[in-house]
């Protein structure tokens, strides 16, 4: 099987409108990321410790089974993430597809997307921003279910007492990202 035959297939699929979910893997200082997009924008970011195959199965189920590996479709996402890891970008501009979230979780995640680079918030603040200050636990769940980590910076949400709280990519990665942004000192 030649690479060009497969590449041509992906290109034709895209040109004929048959590419519903494009994905690729991208290097990061924390390990390989899974990036997936629809025609609307980035739809899913998988962190290094997450099972990429399982994420793709989930996308096939919830978005469309027309899932193809198509690195070129994710050039912009990869470019912005590379710059972010090099501390040359503090604000993502690539289009996002929010279809994997709805309701209160979506409101929380959109509020997270507005937390500026290098700043942190706590779960209570996020619950308030999303319109229900008592739903702190639900706000925590919404952070945990963020389909677009890094780009929607849920690592900037900490526990009210100052503890780091959890992170889908593991607590070491959360610490590393906060160090990268200068929120935490390097140890």
């Amino acid at each position, binding site marked *: 099987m030649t690479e060009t035959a497969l590449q041509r297939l992906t290109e*034709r699929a895209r040109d004929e409108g048959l590419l519903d979910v494009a*994905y690729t893997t991208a290097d990061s200082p924390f390990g390989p990321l899974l990036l997936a997009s629809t025609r609307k924008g980035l739809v899913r970011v998988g962190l290094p410790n997450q099972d990429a195959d399982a994420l793709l199965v989930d996308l*096939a189920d919830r978005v469309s*089974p*027309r899932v193809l*590996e198509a690195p070129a479709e994710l050039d912009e996402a990869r470019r912005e993430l590379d710059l972010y890891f090099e501390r040359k970008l503090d604000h993502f501009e690539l289009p996002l597809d929010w279809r994997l979230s709805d309701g209160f979780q979506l409101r929380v995640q959109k509020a997270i997307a507005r937390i500026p680079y290098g700043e942190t918030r706590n779960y209570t603040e996020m619950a308030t921003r999303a319109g229900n200050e008592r739903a702190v636990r639900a706000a925590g769940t919404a952070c945990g279910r963020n389909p677009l980590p890094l780009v929607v910076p849920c690592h900037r949400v900490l526990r009210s007492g100052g503890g780091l709280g959890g992170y889908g990519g593991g607590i070491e990665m959360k610490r590393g990202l906060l160090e990268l942004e200068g929120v935490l000192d390097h140890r």
Partner: protein
Amino acid sequence: MSKLPPFQLLIDEHATEVMAVLRGAVGREGAEDAFQETFLAALRAYPKLHDSGNLRGWLLTIAHRKAIDHHRAKGRRPLPVAEVRETPVEDPLPDDGVWAAVGALPPKQRAAVTLRYASDLPHAEIAAALGCSPEAARRSLHEGLKRLRKELA
């Protein structure tokens, strides 16, 4: 109904075999086009597929329809018999002249033989792929094998 896996998995798991079968069915030259047509047709139909139980058989069925389309488009001209194989490494089919002889069979016989022996499909699925009755599929297979035996004797 089981869930449909990401389409990329079908490509990863079956592209090599589909290509090999198409090379057997339409020759090396037409195989790449037929390969593209096969997977695009599959991708088009995929979200509405009801049964994800036998995706390999489904793909091979489409592949053989595309092989037949290819032969129709070529006005059923016979293809050149022997091909010089330049890159044998990625082709899982045995290459002892048998497949060259298969390539020289008339389209239906060739398709029947490849489906049976390269893809291991039962008669009923061969019939479905060729759009004929199981009896006719059996006959094409029989005629094809008879001819091969004579050619290779």
